[in-house]
């Protein structure tokens, strides 16, 4: 069965989610959203999620809209979560995982949303840190990147909005005790984790149609490879069918 890269990513994301997870997505998150809703309808019926600025808890919106804050996302929801609750869930570890991303990510999973270049000098300005510091409070940070190239995947980020696994024991001591930091990364090319002795990013699977060499070429640091790298599992027809029920307008196929 034919599927798009976005659909593959959504299905792969769903398999990374667990029953009883409590998660949230924000701006530009169609792919994680579809993954979350697929997980709810397959192996994770006890998963809860907040849909961005709409505050919708367990949204069942009929269509994918382009704005997470859109009030149409409240359709079929169970609660209108106030921002205060969302921030409290982020501090206290009630959210078990969050989908975060950035304009740069480095080999230890630190992310930047402030500036490429020197923020005090010449730079390209980003939108701001928003919730990236929560990589140090959330049990599992799942990183979702819409592109995979050496400009995004850099050896060291120019500004740390959210810290990864570098920084040693002192910085690790500033994390909330339940926080494991960034644990997983998905891009249009591959999935990665940080399961190396020094917690560097490691290639976990390569999406169908791509190669280990290509992924390493598109990564601006030495991406760890330990042993044979499997191909990311293609979506089953059953899962694709559910994805297309959630994404009725085919946004993920554009």
């Amino acid at each position, binding site marked *: 069965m034919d599927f798009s890269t976005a659909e593959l990513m959504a299905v792969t994301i769903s398999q990374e989610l667990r029953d009883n997870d409590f998660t949230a997505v*924000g*701006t*530009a998150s169609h792919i994680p959203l579809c993954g979350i809703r697929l997980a709810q309808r397959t192996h994770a019926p006890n998963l809860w999620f907040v849909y961005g*600025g*709409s*505050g919708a808890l367990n949204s069942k919106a009929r*269509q994918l*809209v*382009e*704005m*997470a*804050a*859109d*009030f*149409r996302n*409240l*359709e079929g929801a169970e609660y*209108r979560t*106030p*921002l*205060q609750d969302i*921030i409290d869930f*982020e*501090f206290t570890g009630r959210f078990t995982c969050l989908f975060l991303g950035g304009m740069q990510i480095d080999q230890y999973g630190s992310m930047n*949303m*402030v*500036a490429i270049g020197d*923020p*005090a000098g*010449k*730079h*390209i*300005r*980003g*939108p*701001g*840190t*928003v*919730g*990236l*510091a*929560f*990589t*140090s*409070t959330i049990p599992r940070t799942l990183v979702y990147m819409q592109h995979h190239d050496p400009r995004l995947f850099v050896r060291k980020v120019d*500004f*740390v*909005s*959210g*810290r990864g696994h570098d*920084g040693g024991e002192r*910085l690790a001591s*500033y*994390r*909330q005790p339940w*926080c494991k930091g960034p644990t997983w990364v998905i891009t249009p090319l591959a999935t990665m984790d940080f399961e190396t002795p020094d917690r560097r990013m490691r290639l976990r699977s390569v999406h169908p149609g791509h190669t280990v060499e290509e992924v390493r070429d598109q990564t601006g640091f030495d991406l760890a490879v330990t042993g044979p790298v499997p191909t990311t599992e293609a979506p089953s027809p059953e899962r694709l069918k559910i994805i297309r029920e959630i994404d009725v307008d085919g946004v993920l196929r554009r």
Partner: protein
Amino acid sequence: MSQRRSKLKSAAEALADIPDGAKVLAAGVHLSNTPMALVRQLVRQGTKSLEIIPTPATGLWVDMLIAAGAVSKLYVSYVGLEFLGLAPNFRRAAQEKTLQIVDVDEPTIFHGLRAAASGLPFVAFPPFHLTTDLPRTSPDIYKEIIDPFTGKPAVAIPPLCPDVCLVHVARADIYGNGVSLGGRHMEDVITKASRRVILSAEEIVDNAEICRHPTHTTIPGVLVDSVVHAPFGAYPGACPGVYGYDRPHLLEYNELAKQNKTREYLDRYVHAQADEAMMLKAIGAQRLEALRNYG
């Protein structure tokens, strides 16, 4: 017997005495319930050197005020145009250093406002911001302290206290009791944190209607100084439960902004229109009404 005082004013009257240099916050999230009619009035009257305390995720109104030359200092958690991408005037001003930027984040804005709302001298956070570059680049906001109860590190952040906040809702009465039909984005905290509160509403309803459903009131009038009747007051953004955003208009804004021609946009839609009634006429009633058929 004396009369209960109406707070109903025109936008121009409500905003007339906001001085240059004021600390201003406009409520809303992204393109939802942002008080654009009040923001356009600020542009019309040419208020300058504003210190902007935005909500944690917003952009259009900030970008527009920057283009109007009205901003001198800006706190940033997320300033962007959501699905349209970066806010072009914000990006340019940041890169050309024409305004002072204080990088913060979502919890810092929220808890800073909460501190102001609750009269707290500061708020203590667990020390997770120390893992980021924010304390280094915004040393006036993030102070490492010792938790007096545990002896462990913590981070103190100061109150954020707007001189004036602008809030848009679906309905209000003339005494300032407001009903938002959309998400709740700390309007309750913002109105307590601000020295002055200006509320705009799509519709002005009788106090009796408010009193029929007191549990539906999201902003109590006791916190509100002025009420402005502003139909399509969140335009070109959405007013949840009332109308959606005007996508082509937002694209027009974004296109001009990217080309550094926001002045043309402001001339056409803000300065050329003496007030909001004229602005809505220029957009066209049919086009506006169509936005009500939403989803």
